[in-house]
């Protein structure tokens, strides 16, 4: 059973991805995508129902050959792509660094595999490993990822029609787009299950390649530049993997299995301090933590399904997944303290940066970096509660953020703008879409939605740690206030509309847009209500498998730790009651509607005009608040990037001494 599921989860999407590449017919391609989505969703659920985790799995020896061959083919392709770009567009910092770092992966890896290892290719047992943590990631990738691919079928059609209408596109590029999207899903599943570091490194680089291919999809100058920036920053991770493999192989452990490293632990084997610091660095680059945040922000030029899939719910989450996975390995070392403070710093600065952004997707990008920073903070605090809430945030963040990206993408196709100011009144003009976006936004910042349990758990458990946690707590609280601020003012823009009498407008229901958004908002609400079963079903077992004590005791009402109580569905009941009461007792009717107060100078009821200078009808304009002069990117990044670099230097100084 398990070998069939491995094939379906990893190989099947890669194979169908190659099919998509060759098929020019829209309907046939759409059918293949739908088929892949169904297969992935069913296989991931079947894997969850396997029950007896952890499972070690050793694939047939031929696969070691396949992985080794693919690894060098992949690196050769990246090298070719970099050099081709240098030839075509000239030398830039980003494409030169991409070429150098590709060589930086290939050379040490080749030296290790062909000269140092005792067999070619190096065969180790249990190259794949399944436990609840990896299954949670697999569910996110296979279910949410598949939904995004389904959404993309419609999105890319509209996107290309718009570009063709503008005359910026001649022939469809969708085969290439879905080629990258589908093999990405397979690569991600491979990544979360890989235990052999060589395999992990290969899948890691494969996702980086997909990321590069998808960011440059529109092939504008800025898209290609940003794609190479993302490529070289993520390749730092691949280079580090090569170093970790060599160090781990030559250490007393003599193993390249991730599990062996974690089980030995850096606290007991100080020789592992540097490999663990490197693994943290790998996570930071993939999760676009400061100072690498620029690649994720730049990646927003890609079509929105790409941002939803790679840059919010799955690929960047792989970075924090790695941190959560190796957290038991660095427990009790200075790395752990460092990771907590670093995560807090990232959470704070990105929340401040997000306030000044007026482009919706950029706000989402900074918010993503910040939430991943929060998960990293949880991994660093390294108590059972913090790991539990970190895993839960990984899960809930993937749902809510993917939803918000898809909402932003859909709004973009209604108003043809990504600017928050152009989204004024969406809630009135497109009530279903606007309503989903607002609830999705609220699910990121208010109790009792699942995302909040992380802030709650992190704040409470941080009190149990050392004096350094004072700093972490301050960053967490200020960041938390700033996060609420930028979400609320965005939601305010969506809500803002003139008091016009008459019922709400209706919008056409598009299954591949609204249907998928409704499924995701359903996930966000239902899993928040069912947070107790979610904890007991998948989070508690992952804690046990990682060697942590149980974090919470549960009953029907709440999650309870030794420190406090998180109340779940009763709060939803209160909100629902208030909502129902409001709808029953109060409703804006034409006869009770009044225009906004404009000092008595309104032109007439039902318009947003007032009598201005010289008795002219003047339209009222309102706008959001951005504080750009204080918190703008130009102003803050000058400080933030050096701070991030200093932090990373401190990490390596800490482990060297």
């Amino acid at each position: 059973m398990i070998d069939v599921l491995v094939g379906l989860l990893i190989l099947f999407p890669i194979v169908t991805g190659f099919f998509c590449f060759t098929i020019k017919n829209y309907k046939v391609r759409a059918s293949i995508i739908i088929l892949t989505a169904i297969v992935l969703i069913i296989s991931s659920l079947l894997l969850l129902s396997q029950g007896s985790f952890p499972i070690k799995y050793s694939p047939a020896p031929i696969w070691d050959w396949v992985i080794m061959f693919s690894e060098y083919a992949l690196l050769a392709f990246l090298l070719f792509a970099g050099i081709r770009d240098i030839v075509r567009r000239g030398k830039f910092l980003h494409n030169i660094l991409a070429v150098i770092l590709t060589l930086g992966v290939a050379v040490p890896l080749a030296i290790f595999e062909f000269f140092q290892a005792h067999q070619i290719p190096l065969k180790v047992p249990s190259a794949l490993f399944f436990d609840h943590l990896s299954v949670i990631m697999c569910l996110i990738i296979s279910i949410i990822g598949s939904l995004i691919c389904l959404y993309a079928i419609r999105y890319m059609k509209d996107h290309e029609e718009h570009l063709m209408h503008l005359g910026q596109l001649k022939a469809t590029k969708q085969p290439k787009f879905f080629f990258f999207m589908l093999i990405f899903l397979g690569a991600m599943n491979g990544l979360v299950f890989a235990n052999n570091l060589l395999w992990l490194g290969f899948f890691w680089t494969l996702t980086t390649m997909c990321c590069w291919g998808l960011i440059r999809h529109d092939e504008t100058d800025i898209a290609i530049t940003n794609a190479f920036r993302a490529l070289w920053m993520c390749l730092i991770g691949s280079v580090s993997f090569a170093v970790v493999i060599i160090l781990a192989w030559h250490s007393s452990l003599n193993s390249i299995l991730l599990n062996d490293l974690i089980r030995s632990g850096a606290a007991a084997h100080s020789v592992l301090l540097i490999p663990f610091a490197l693994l943290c660095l790998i996570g930071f680059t993939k999760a676009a933590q400061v100072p690498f945040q620029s690649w994720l922000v730049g990646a927003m030029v890609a079509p929105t399904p790409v941002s939803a899939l790679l840059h919010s719910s799955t690929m960047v989450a792989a970075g924090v997944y790695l941190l959560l996975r190796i957290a038991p390995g660095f427990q009790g070392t200075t790395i752990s303290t460092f990771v907590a403070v670093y995560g807090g710093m990232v959470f704070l600065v990105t929340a401040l940066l997000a306030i000044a952004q007026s482009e919706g997707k950029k706000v989402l990008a900074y918010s993503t970096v910040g939430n991943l920073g929060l998960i990293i903070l949880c991994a660093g605090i390294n108590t059972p509660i913090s790991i539990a809430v970190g895993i839960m945030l990984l899960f809930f963040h993937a749902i809510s953020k993917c939803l918000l990206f898809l909402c932003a993408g859909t709004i973009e196709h209604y108003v043809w703008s990504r600017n928050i100011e152009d989204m004024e009144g969406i809630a009135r003009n497109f009530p279903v879409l606007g309503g989903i976006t607002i609830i999705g936004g609220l699910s990121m910042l208010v109790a009792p939605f699942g995302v909040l349990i992380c802030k709650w758990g992190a704040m409470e458990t941080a009190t149990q740690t050392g004096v350094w946690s004072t700093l972490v707590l301050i960053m967490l609280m200020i960041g938390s206030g700033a996060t609420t601020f930028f979400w609320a003012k965005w939601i305010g823009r969506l809500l803002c509309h003139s008091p016009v009498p008459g019922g709400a407008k209706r919008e056409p229901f598009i299954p591949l847009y609204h249907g998928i958004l409704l499924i995701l908002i359903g996930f966000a609400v239902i899993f928040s209500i069912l947070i107790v079963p979610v904890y007991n079903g998948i989070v508690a077992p992952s804690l046990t498998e990682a060697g942590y004590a149980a974090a919470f005791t549960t009953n029907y009402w709440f999650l309870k730790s030794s420190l406090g109580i998180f109340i779940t569905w009763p709060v939803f009941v209160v909100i629902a009651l208030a909502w129902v009461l409001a709808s029953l007792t109060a409703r804006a009717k034409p006869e009770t509607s009044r225009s906004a107060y404009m000092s008595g100078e309104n032109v007439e009821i039902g318009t947003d005009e007032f009598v201005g200078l010289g008795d002219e009808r003047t339209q009222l304009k309102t706008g959001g608040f951005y504080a750009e002069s204080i918190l703008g990117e130009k102003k803050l990044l000058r400080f933030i990037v050096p701070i991030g670099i200093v932090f990373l230097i401190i990490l390596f100084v800490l482990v060297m001494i």
Partner: protein
Amino acid sequence: MSTGWLIGSTISAVIVAPFLGGLLVGVDRKFTAHMQGRIGPPIIQPFYDIIKLFGKKSMVAGNAQLVFAYIYLALIIAAVVLFGLQQDLLMLLFILSFGTLCLALGALSVKSPYSQLGGNRQLLQFLAYEPILLLAVIPIALKTGSFPVAGIYKYGQALLPNLWLTFIALLIVLAIVMRKSPFDISGSVHAHQEIVSGVVTEYSGPYLAIIELGHWYEVILLLAVLALFWVGGGLWWISIIIALASWFILLIVDNISARLTWSWMVKFAWGIGISLVALNILFVKLGWM
């Protein structure tokens, strides 16, 4: 304490809190009038006002603002209930902040110059005080060992002697939440013509009454949080005196200071307020307090 006693006191708190809140507003008006050389309204004028508001015909500027007004009141009552049941203080504050957020969102949902200004400023007020309010829970939890309010009762000592830095920071929070000078940024009972009524400009009749009621609950809840700084120490009436004295200090500050800008408010709250709590946390962690 038995469960029955807890539920009983919670129900009475939900019933009594608005009366207390209204009374405090009445005294506030009378006191302010005297300071300004006026006679002022009767002390129970706020109740006359709210009864009259409930009786008025509803005039609305959109469905969203109504829904947010109801959720605002419901969540703040939920927070009061959690306080009465001696639940987790941090959870309670999360619910309270969702409530406060609804007030801002209700204001932002109407395209009106004054309502928009008030809503954005309400968010700025939130940005200024929220970190202090959440941080203030930490030293309490460090001292008592857990986050539920019940732990503070069981602690057996007054918190104030060790946590007076946090207490002062909470006074800043209270002043911002009550929109008292110098923090009456998002709306005010005094006439500020550039914002009119700020955050509540577009609310009228019964819906304004709902918001007013919610605000009374909110102020009473925060005063109750201040009273927690003594409840473990015996002599229950000292807790009440501490809460009332804090409120009275804010009245005096309100009457003797002018309104300042939002940027000053954020700087002051973050600079002074957060530093006070941070020092308190540090001192408790180091065992000095």
